[in-house]
């Protein structure tokens, strides 16, 4: 097939000694930057872009450096998600659900290894998907209209309700709070300020990183302060510094399913790695959570979103390259990079500049391989972070978060906002309300509203447009099915726990 030879050509271009050196350098520095709470892949790539221009590399080498930093930073974000329960970036939020409990049970090495392996397989599936389907998908994805996107977001939110927490009301309230926060700022369509109360600092809305770091890192400090130092649940240390291969093998189907779901989610223009990881996690939970182990350290709960978000990152290249529509912050940065290197995204890009496109695909894949090779040995190093005493670790985390956020935004207001989010996160955690739906509401709320309003604009106020297309109808049917399944499962679990309580 012609695309295979093009891909091979891409690899040939990418595999020079200089590029390999850049690859390793990028992966390593990316991992370090991504592991620092408060930075993350987008900022990591943004910080390093000026460096690439300073060096004056050619297009392929620059792309390789930047993709390896990007994937390195994504992996670094997983490290802080799993070891510290602080999501390094938005897609990492799902990883904290099972990754952190695994670390608390002494299985940090397993969690990190699964993250690496699943990410690698997710990227592989994405590359295969790209090779086989790219031109076709580019054309098919155009059929998704705003009403279909709205239906997709509704589906995502309803399935989240089935994931986190015991009481669905609390989960929904959390999601609604997130949506409320998402509307703060200048309305992107009409330009009027909403809920800003004359405070111009917040005209741009709430920065997701500020919310993430506040909700997770600062609330963690407040949680730790509840008990005296000697009474705190100590990190259980590590069972071993080497991951257990059998655990990884156990997750193989989760990885496969997560990759496929993630890739499909990524291909949709305007949807990105966050949606990919959410859908992968919720699908996996619906499929394999028979004993209620998800959320308490089930390795499949780490494998699925990890595979999903890497596959989605790969899939997101299709709309980015063929339509110029970035699906997430990181693809937006990549798009900016490509444009600055004189690459014009568009439907004919695959035909006009195949070398560059396939060079990019090859470099992304190589970054994933390099990460797998580099990071498995480093797991022992990173897991040792668990042994650092809390009184030393948390101040450093707080300092890094504050300095990180401030160095990017230069806004003291953002720091104060972060503290407010810390208090909010603490209160919600005390009330047994999961933070994940809130974060997802904050992240996806803007897109959800925009698509609703676009759909209504097109139909001139007719609410029927929301169920007009076959895609929307299918998605709503799926939503109902999920809702029904969750309710049925919740009832069944309730009866089971009732029965257990009677027997026990």
């Amino acid at each position: 097939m012609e695309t295979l030879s093009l891909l091979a050509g891409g690899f040939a271009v990418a595999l020079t000694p200089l590029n390999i050196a850049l690859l390793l350098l990028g992966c390593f520095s990316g991992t370090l930057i991504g592991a620092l709470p408060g930075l993350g892949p987008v900022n990591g790539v943004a910080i390093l872009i000026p460096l690439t221009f300073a060096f004056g590399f050619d297009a392929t080498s620059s792309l390789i450096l930047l993709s390896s930093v990007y994937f390195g930073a994504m992996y670094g974000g997983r490290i802080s998600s799993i070891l510290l329960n602080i999501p390094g970036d938005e897609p990492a939020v799902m990883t904290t659900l099972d990754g952190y409990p695994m670390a608390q049970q002494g299985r940090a090495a397993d969690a990190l290894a699964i993250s690496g392996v699943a990410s690698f397989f997710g990227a592989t599936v994405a590359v295969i998907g790209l090779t086989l389907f790219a031109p076709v998908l580019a054309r098919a994805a155009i059929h998704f209209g705003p009403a279909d996107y709205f239906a997709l977001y509704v589906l995502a939110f309803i399935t989240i309700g089935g994931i986190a927490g015991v009481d669905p009301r609390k989960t929904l309230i959390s999601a609604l709070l997130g949506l409320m926060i998402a509307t703060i700022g200048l309305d992107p369509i009409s330009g009027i300020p909403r809920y800003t109360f004359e405070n111009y600092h917040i005209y741009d809305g709430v920065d997701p990183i500020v919310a993430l770091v506040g909700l997770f890192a600062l609330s963690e400090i407040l949680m730790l302060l509840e008990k005296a130092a000697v009474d705190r649940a100590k990190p259980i240390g590590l069972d071993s510094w080497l991951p257990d291969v059998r655990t990884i093998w156990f997750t193989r189907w989760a990885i496969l399913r997560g990759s496929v779901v993630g890739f499909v989610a990524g291909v949709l223009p305007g949807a990105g790695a966050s949606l990919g990881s959410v859908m992968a996690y919720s699908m996996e939970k619906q499929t394999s959570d028979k004993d209620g182990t998800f959320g308490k350290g089930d390795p499949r709960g780490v494998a699925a979103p990890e595979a999903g978000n890497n596959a989605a990152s790969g899939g997101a290249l299709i709309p980015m390259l063929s339509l110029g529509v970035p699906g997430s912050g990181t693809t937006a940065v990549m798009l900016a990079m490509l444009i600055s290197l004189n690459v014009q995204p568009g439907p004919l890009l695959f035909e006009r500049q195949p070398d560059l496109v396939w060079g990019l695909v090859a470099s992304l894949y190589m970054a994933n391989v390099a990460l797998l090779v580099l990071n498995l040995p480093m797991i022992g190093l990173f897991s040792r972070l668990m042994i650092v005493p809390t009184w030393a670790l948390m101040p450093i985390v707080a300092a890094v978060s504050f300095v990180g956020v401030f160095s990017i935004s230069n806004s003291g207001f953002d720091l104060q906002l972060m503290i407010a989010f810390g208090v909010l996160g603490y209160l919600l955690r005390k009330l047994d309300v999961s933070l994940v739906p809130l974060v997802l509401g904050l992240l996806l709320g803007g897109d959800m509203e925009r698509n609703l309003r676009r759909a209504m604009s097109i139909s001139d106020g007719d609410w029927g447009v929301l169920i007009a297309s076959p895609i929307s109808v299918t998605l709503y049917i799926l939503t109902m099915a999920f809702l029904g399944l969750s309710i049925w499962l919740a009832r069944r679990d309730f009866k089971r726990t009732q029965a257990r309580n009677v027997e026990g």
Partner: protein
Amino acid sequence: MTVRLAGVAIFMIAALYTWYGRDYTASFGDVLGPSVFPVIVGIPAMILSASLVVFPIGQVQWPDPPHMLRQVAALAILLGYALLLRDLGFPLATFGLILGIGIVLGGAPLRALILAAIFAPALWALFDQILGLPLAFLGRWFD
């Protein structure tokens, strides 16, 4: 009890949110306008939080007063950092932050001091020098 209180608090926030939301109008733009989505979000939030008041679930355990005092102290240190950052300059302010939070978390004062003395300049160097993100070394009070 506290879940009920939280329900009331969230209800009031949602009610205010919906109230303000209804007022947002744009003279041009799309058909729906900036007010519809807030109302769509606010009303279910009000209903759900009201249901939490009527049918609360779960117990909340608050920490005892000495530890609550520590939490307040930590928040004060964090807020002080946010407000004094530009006045003190980064290394100094970060030194205070690490020292303060370290002591509040129960670390020995001398060890916290050493930790802060090492990491505050190290972090400044990492961000300002290595990553190229400018951070003031001396603050406004020293100009």
